[in-house]
């Protein structure tokens, strides 16, 4: 089973939930897809067994062959190539690596080179397998690296995907293909507003979903009213407790120090399975 953990708003507790869930269930693999700011490894201190650089393809122009006809520039939807008055300029940071420019060039003047965009690390903590990516600072595109992280998905395991915040392409790339998505929110106006946007995305993608309310007890009751109205199951509530916040601040998954939570996370996983009829 593949379960993703997402939220529109940042800082609602996605990583905390993903990590606590992954260490509570058996045979798990955790993929941290927040490659801009990966944090799961900080809570798990995995033994790293493999490091691999990731590249993305960008155009490489052979100026000796180029006659500056401008067909590549006209084709490129991302304005990553410009030609003017006997000059050709490539902006790799805008390039999506589709390869269209080299296909369309009548002089075969465009090949492809590699741009390093980050690194993927694989490792383990006890019997939990972990994969995460680290985007190079200054590199704008997270999606190609997320794709590489997901290529290491092990279908024989219970896979937990930790998504980046937001509802745009990096989040979509992460949750795509998951059997279920757990939405972590907090009972505040910001939490609710961003939850609603995320639910729309998942409805559109036809991914079954449920909600975990983190820091329950703060804010108001509107998240509960919304979930009731929409018929979205509330899978778990994690109360606001200073102890949980302190453990998180020290980089300790709270269920390790508060073992009564292990059962609750196991039950959460079983409930998800049941919802899916698995």
């Amino acid at each position, binding site marked *: 089973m593949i379960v993703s953990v997402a939220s529109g708003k940042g800082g609602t507790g996605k990583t905390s939930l993903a990590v606590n869930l992954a260490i509570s269930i058996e045979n798990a693999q955790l993929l941290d897809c927040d490659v*801009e700011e990966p*944090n799961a490894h900080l809570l798990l201190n995995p033994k790293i067994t493999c490091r691999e650089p990731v590249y993305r393809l960008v155009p490489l122009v052979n100026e000796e062959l180029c006659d500056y006809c401008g067909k590549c520039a006209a084709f490129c939807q991302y304005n990553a190539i410009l030609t003017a008055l006997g000059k050709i300029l490539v902006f790799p940071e805008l390039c999506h690596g589709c390869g269209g420019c080299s296909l369309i060039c009548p002089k075969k003047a465009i090949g492809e080179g590699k741009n390093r965009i980050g690194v993927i690390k694989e490792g383990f903590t006890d019997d939990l397998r972990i994969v995460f990516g680290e985007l190079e600072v200054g590199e704008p595109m997270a999606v190609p690296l997320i794709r590489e992280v997901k290529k290491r998905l092990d279908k024989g395991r219970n896979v937990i995907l930790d998504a980046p915040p937001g509802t745009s392409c990096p989040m979509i790339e992460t949750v795509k293909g998951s059997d279920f998505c757990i939405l972590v929110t907090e009972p505040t106006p*910001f939490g609710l507003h961003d939850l609603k946007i995320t639910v729309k995305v998942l409805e559109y993608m036809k991914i079954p979903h449920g909600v975990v309310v983190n820091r329950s007890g703060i804010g108001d009751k509107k998240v509960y009213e919304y979930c009731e109205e929409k018929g979205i199951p509330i899978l778990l509530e994690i109360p606001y407790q200073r102890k949980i916040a302190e453990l998180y*601040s020290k*980089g300790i998954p709270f269920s390790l120090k508060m073992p009564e939570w292990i059962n609750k996370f196991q039950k959460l996983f079983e409930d998800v399975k049941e919802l899916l009829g698995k």
Partner: protein
Amino acid sequence: MKQITILSGKGGTGKTTITATFVVLAKKAVVADCDVDAPDLHMLLHPEIIETKEFRGSKIAVINETKCVKCGVCREKCRFDAITQNFTVDPFSCEGCGVCTIVCPVNAVTLTERISGYAYISKIKYGFMAHALLNPGESNSGKLVTIVRQNAKLLAEKEKNNLIIIDGPPGIGCPVIASVTGVDAGLVVTEPTMSGIHDLERALRLLRHFNVRPFVCVNMYDVNEENTNKISRFCEENGVEVVGKIPFNPVVTEAMVNRKTVMEYSPKCDVAKEIEAIWNKLCTELSLR
């Protein structure tokens, strides 16, 4: 004209709370909400929309079923795995590059524009606001951020305002880069957690990469004072000024539930006072007064 971006790397550290309070303190400002996929600032500043513009950020491939001969060339050449087994286009994978349109031997594929979101110009009690909403699941948020920033700039010029306050999105990827390029200062809001520290380091590296003057403030500093000291030491070693430490106070959530900025809801509380002190420091450092 000066521009300052509030960013964090890690989400949920308090960017929007601080931005909204700055707007109240600035009295007359243009504010830009550059978190276009999960914007929250409008819930505290209650903008009245004056102008709405469609944002056509990306295109999508459409396959003409009657022309398609199901040869599979498009699927083979698409690098985004966007052509399904049934020769339809997966809207969540298609990046609108157009490669399928040039490789199709029977010209069955075309690119069409899609409305990816909306950009707004609004009036608020304290001046003007440029903001946007990306349609759920759309790409190209960086492009929309650039539009929001252009709108903010035009507003500031028109209103003869010399300051733009920018609320940035979490992360360090394309929408964040679009939010920090060319600004005069970046205030990184962090929290004293292992994740907060890790993400702060990356956010500071991003600012250095784009030559933006960095400042740091620690939110909820008293949740772990040992980590707060670590942050202070780290910043000192790297020549970055820590302009303030905001205590944890449930009043922040209460203010949010009441749809008010902390400064409006509880102007005398410790959080409001500390944000005001931070604001005053930034004004001095950036010669805003």
